[in-house]
């Protein structure tokens, strides 16, 4: 009897486990969502927000290597800036600036992965929109606006990749990853995506969205860069010029140059599209300009940011701001024979008088240099703001730097440095639009139109209300004027090009455009060889550039070797 009881208990016990086991082995994931939940208007919108959120290039998966402000790829590679700081910090930038990077360079792989993660987010939004349409949880009109935004973003991200590597794979929501390669010409697909974005209304209610105007400019940029289609771009730019910001407000030139870069004006009249940064928003600073967090002066307990002394201007770039007695740039590059004086090699205690020659006032909004007031931080005191002058020279970056009075309000608090700011990247600003327009005008032989647009910019720069002031007097001898209506340089297409190209350098310097501009103009190797030759003669030039030289292959970056390996050989190297 007893035994039977025990056996009965055992059998019951086994039976319980056996009968439960099927359900017992079904465990649903916690804390996540599946596609079904997201196929609604609200759900798609969050996916779209996710796609917008990589416009800055960074997330906790991708750091400053992927920054869409392109300070490394646009400006350091384009030689308006150098890596700055000391030679051992972020050593992977060293070969990028000395034109000797290999396909194994980690920066390139991070940039690649960031751009394509952004593309995959766009494709998720599109796929889920289509699903929602099938399920009729949204209307066709709602779907259109979602898809237009997602495609414009997808086009932009692909364009970013194209500017870096040219031979790129194009990924859409239907792509079979196992068949993807980079053999086809993808430019038309990029243009088609951006074209779709131009159908968006201008008033998107929120300043962080793409609208028709933004997309017209982006499309024009892509047409110019990829296809030299200046006539086509001209039409888009003319449309954009009469447009609005994404929140429906007006666009135009800000009255003075310097104010454009003040955080409070990040969404001011000048900016057509600003990549939105936010601080103290619970993201642990990842939304606060992480991509540029290294690019602040370097001084213990006193200077803005606190880290890490990267992104210093090159001497050649600083010299470019030299103006003639007539207040015009030295278009023959003779400025290098009268370089701007610096405090290189001096301690802060040693006496120093800043350069007394004629200068374009935009210099002192673009570059921090000794003796010149630096926002409201007082005068730049020289080598104590710089990590290692013997490696990278005497200059500091300035355009993204916040004001002392803004610390804590527009900067992240409680992290290892205070250089996370709300100073969003001015991805498309009105002056850029005018200069792109002028470029198209020159290429289509409307030199007078080009001059008018360029002069609008010079006139703004010449507004004395916008000079950096030392007390009541201008901080340096600012001499600047508009181009004359007759004679050089707008007497020939060739001369006009030189003027346009110089104007972009001066107006948009340190804003991430230079190397891409040079590539568009087809002068990368000659121009950078010229700059490099000069830059090697400055006291820090050998440490920085060694035996560097610019080759014909340096108009792209190599496709990351890891990506070629991962593609099982379907991706081919671009050089």
């Amino acid at each position, binding site marked *: 009897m007893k035994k039977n009881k025990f056996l009965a208990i055992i059998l019951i016990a086994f039976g319980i486990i056996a009968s439960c086991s099927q359900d017992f082995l079904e465990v649903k994931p916690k804390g996540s969502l599946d596609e079904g939940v997201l196929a609604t208007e609200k759900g798609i919108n969050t996916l779209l927000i996710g796609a917008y959120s990589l416009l800055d290039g960074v*997330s906790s998966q991708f750091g400053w290597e992927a920054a869409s402000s392109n300070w490394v790829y646009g400006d350091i590679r384009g030689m308006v800036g150098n890596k700055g700081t000391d030679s051992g910090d972020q050593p992977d930038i060293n070969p990028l600036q000395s034109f000797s990077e290999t396909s194994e360079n980690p920066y390139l792989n991070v940039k690649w*992965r960031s751009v394509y993660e952004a593309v995959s987010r766009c494709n998720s939004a599109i796929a889920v929109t289509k699903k929602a349409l099938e399920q009729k949880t949204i209307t066709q009109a709602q779907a259109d606006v979602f898809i237009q935004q997602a495609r414009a973003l997808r086009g932009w991200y692909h364009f970013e990749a194209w500017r870096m590597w040219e031979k790129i794979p194009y990924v859409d929501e239907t792509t079979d990853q196992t068949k993807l390669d980079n053999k086809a010409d993808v430019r038309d697909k990029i243009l088609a995506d951006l074209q779709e974005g131009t159908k968006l209304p201008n008033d998107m209610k929120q300043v962080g969205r793409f609208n028709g105007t933004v997309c017209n400019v982006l499309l024009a940029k892509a047409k110019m860069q990829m296809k030299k289609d200046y006539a086509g771009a001209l039409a888009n730019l003319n449309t954009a010029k009469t447009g609005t910001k994404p929140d429906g407000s007006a666009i135009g030139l800000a009255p003075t140059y310097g104010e454009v870069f003040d955080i409070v004006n990040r969404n001011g009249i000048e900016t057509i599209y600003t990549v939105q940064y936010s601080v103290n928003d619970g993201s642990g600073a990842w939304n606060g300009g992480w991509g540029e967090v290294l690019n602040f002066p370097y001084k213990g*307990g006193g200077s803005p940011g606190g880290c890490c002394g990267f992104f210093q201007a090159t001497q050649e770039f600083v010299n470019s701001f030299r103006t003639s007695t007539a207040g015009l740039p030295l278009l023959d590059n003779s400025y290098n024979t009268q370089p701007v004086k610096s405090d290189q090699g001096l301690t802060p205690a040693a006496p120093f008088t800043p350069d007394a020659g004629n200068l374009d006032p935009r210099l002192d909004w673009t570059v921090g240099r000794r003796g010149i007031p630096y926002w409201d931080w007082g005068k730049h005191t020289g080598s104590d703001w710089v990590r290692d002058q013997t490696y990278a020279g005497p200059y500091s970056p300035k355009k993204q730097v916040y004001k002392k009075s803004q610390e*804590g309000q527009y900067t992240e*608090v*409680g992290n290892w440095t205070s250089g996370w700011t709300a100073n969003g990247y001015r991805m498309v600003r009105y002056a850029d639009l005018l200069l792109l327009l002028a470029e198209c005008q020159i290429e289509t032989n409307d030199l007078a139109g080009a001059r008018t647009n360029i002069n609008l910019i010079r006139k703004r720069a010449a507004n004395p209300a916008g000079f950096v002031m030392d007390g009541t007097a201008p901080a340096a001898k600012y001499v600047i004027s508009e181009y004359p209506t007759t004679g050089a340089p707008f007497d020939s297409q060739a001369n006009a090009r030189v003027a346009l190209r110089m104007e972009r350098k001066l107006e948009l310097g340190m804003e991430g455009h230079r190397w891409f501009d040079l590539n568009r103009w087809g002068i990368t190797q000659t121009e950078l060889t010229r700059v490099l030759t000069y830059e090697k003669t400055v006291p820090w030039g050998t440490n920085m550039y060694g035996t560097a030289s610019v080759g014909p292959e340096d108009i792209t970056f190599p496709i990351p070797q890891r990506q070629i390996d991962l*593609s099982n050989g379907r991706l081919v190297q671009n050089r």
Partner: protein
Amino acid sequence: MRITKVFQRITLLLFVMVLSAGFVWAQEKTVTGVVSTPAEGPLPGVSIVVQGTTVGTITDVSGKYSIRVPGPSAVLVYSSVGFITQTIPVGSQTAIDVSLEPDVKALSEVVVTGYSTQRKRDITGAVGVVKTEDIKTVPVGNITSQLQGRTSGITVTGDGQPGSVAKLRIRGPGSFENNNPLYIVDGIPTTDISYINPNDVETISVLKDAGAASIYGSRASAGVIVLTTKKGAKGVKVTYDMFTGFKAPGAGPTADLLTAQEYANLQWLVYKNDGTTEVHPLYGDSKNAKPTLPKWAANTDWYDVITDNAPMTNHDLTLSGGNESANFFIGLGVFQEDGIIIYTNNDKYTGRINSEFKVLNNKLKIGENFSFRYGSNRGVANLSEDSPIQMGPYRSQSIVPHVITAASAMQGTSRPFVVGEFGGTGMAPRLGNNSNAYANQVRGKDNGNYFINMIGSIYADVELMKGLNFRTTLGGTWYNGANYNFSNSTYERSENVGTPSMSEGSWYGGTWNWTNQVNWEKTFGDHKVAALAGYAANKYGIGRSLDGAVAGFFSDALDYRNLSNGQTVQDANSYVGTPVTLVSQFAKVDYSFMEKYILSATLRRDGSSVFGQDNKYGFFPAFAAGWHLGDEAFLDDVAWLDQLKIRGSWGQMGNQNAVSAENAFFLYGGDAANSFYDISGTGNSSVQGFRPTRIGNPNAKWETNETMDIGFEAQLFNNKFGIVLDWYSKQTKDLLYNPELPGTAGSASQPYVNVASMSNKGIDLELTYRDNIGKLGLNISGTFTSINNEITKIAEGFTYFDYGGSRIGAFTRNEEGQPMASFYGYKVEGLFKTAAEVTSAPTQDGAEPGFFRYANLDNTGASKGKIDPKDRTFIGNPNPDFTYGLNLGLNYANFDLNAFFYGSQGNDLFNWNKWWIDFWPSFQGQKSKDLLYNSWTTSNANATIPKASNKSNFSTNTVASSYYVEDGSFLRLKTLQLGYTLPANLLSKIWVKNLRVYVQGVNLFTLTKYSGLDPEISGDDRSHGIDSGNYPTVRQFIFGLNLSL
């Protein structure tokens, strides 16, 4: 809640069990005598027990014993491993001399294996048995570290940080992730035993091959370690063990590093080498013949200021006892240990209650095991840039004062520093960007972690008929904890923290397990069968956690520190574990014929929730055989051979540890750091956004280890020598790996797929020797473990993945045909001696005299005539060829001496510290004496240390190269202990049964060629052996005593 009620009842039951265990007393007398053997004379270490009780003693070195017996009816049992046990009724005798005969059938020891206990003689699998007395000689307070070198087949790597859990691998890593073995504690599976008090442990068995371990099927592939904890025996026993001592940090790396003046001299050398001039902000004009130091210059020994002698103390008190129908064991432990880094510690307080009842004429046993640990610790980052070891000695210039002592000298600093303030890199330019490691420790002294762990089980074991038992065991584990960490704002750094911030978190979680099994044993003449079968259900990964971080505190005051007092929320997260469930059926049959021929078969079937519908279940069979060759007639003439068994096994074990519980699902999610965007341009808020977070794979299935093992065990020369030798091969197939997807697929978590494979082969060897030479007792044992690891496949289409990162990228590569975590980079052939050599060499970016010349290993295609990534190669292997342990035991009269050595041979280390200190441009931190005195100059062109230069490029410090790779072999005297047992006649007057005192030195010396602080360096299986500021294992000096009543 129903469960709450059940637990209330269980608690009540346990309480009653403990109290009701009674004791038996009787009248006593003392028996003395000598135990000897015909061949060897007096025999020490023989166990003498009064039959049916726990009263017992052991013979001393001269074979003498003295024991108190209850009365004339008592029967004494004399036993010793390797000898035939004798039982002698006491009667009226008071002196009994005994002669023990050698037991030709040794190996009668009983070993705990999977779901059963077996005689060692009957075991056909590879099982390592660790003596708990041995491991306790290593005073670290956690079993994992103590297992180092104690049995073959185990590799243990740890570090010197208090409370850190060493990495334990059984027969090498079989998988890319999570090669931690499965621990079974009193029948309950767990992955963590760090909270179990070593003093509570009765037996430890290591199941190494499929023959032994596949009974644990799906979780066995990384090996299984079975622990049982102590039970009470008849009578009452009280023990108290304690030790106390301290750790001495030693001198650290200071002698290899520069003083403040030397550092300035090095700057002058760099100017000279680079041809640069400037007015140095600290040292004056570079044109001056010599640098001058500023007035505030210190000469800080950073290792010295961040370390201190660290006390440690352990107390263990146990009370155990029982009678025929019940027994209990209560253990209490206190372990307090400071780290050699100031303000670090690890304290733990443990308690255990084990009890068992026999009812229904002893046919039903019910019992429980329960243990509890409360711990608190304050640790530091290890093997990282933020570790004090890296931040202090290797990254801090000597010129920086750790604390300001004389404000009068504070001229020319960035702000007026006052006495008592911390010094730091922000005092002046060119001091680097590191933080003050001393200040970090002082500021963090009030931070901490607290945790509670519990493990327990209740069981019932019923004898259904003779030889047939049913057992059910229900148990689980539970943990919870909390931590908080306040970060002060700083004023002394070059990169200051502007506002204080604080993070705080708490977590809880657990597992449960229910096992039902039937064990059957029967002997029919020469045939003996032992079989078991069972069913188990298991759930783990249950739990939640909560983390918050805020910044902007009005005050740094200690009492003000909580999350509510911060101004700005930086982070607010919670995590909910997706649990994993398993159901399992298992069966095992052992059959032996004439006690000579043994066959064993095991089958396990597991179902797991992590796999999709079609792949939930896996089968894991194993077969093993043994032959007692030594018992065969044809070997009878071989007099020196006492025992010889050969055995072999083949089987499969499973693994699913790597796989996320969410692996089968395609998921979306989002968080502020990854996918939120400030779409309205507020500047201080962001809107929720989502992204694909996981790509699902419903087709993943079990990873399988196929293991083969051939071994033999022998006893030689009157059982003085013992040898156990195993050759094994462990092949992992369908290895679950989440191959990196191309960037174009997005960056959602990649799914685990069954693509890779791995091979481990090696030899395990254990040798023992014991003898008595006159009064001297000698006991020597050695273990030897060799592992040959090779990745045989990664995934279709690609052959490698790099793992880990650094300021110059990853330098470990996992590639087919190579051992895991091999170092990969450029091979340094030497330094360029002359400009002419640079010109004639293959093109190499940054090449110049005094910089590295790399080997041109690939000279084809685009790589022809130049050094490019194709010239990289495997430059080192962090996996040892073999590891070994050697235990020496001596006793003479009442003295005993124990020495234990552990060594690792043939492993390379990547000395990442060299990057910081051997290259001027690797940040403006501390530099090496080598760089100043032994580096390349035109007059020292044969140097091996590259030229001191401010150039950072491909030819200097921006790529991984063989320059950093060093031989990491070492031999360490882990412990040396000298004990003295007080004479029994002295102790009996104070009712003490046994009292032993000892002194001990730990880690007294380490023989190694490695130039860093400590060659024992752990790390992730995919990237380890990289010295980036390793918390060193240092000398300890201990006094202790063992007392029993």
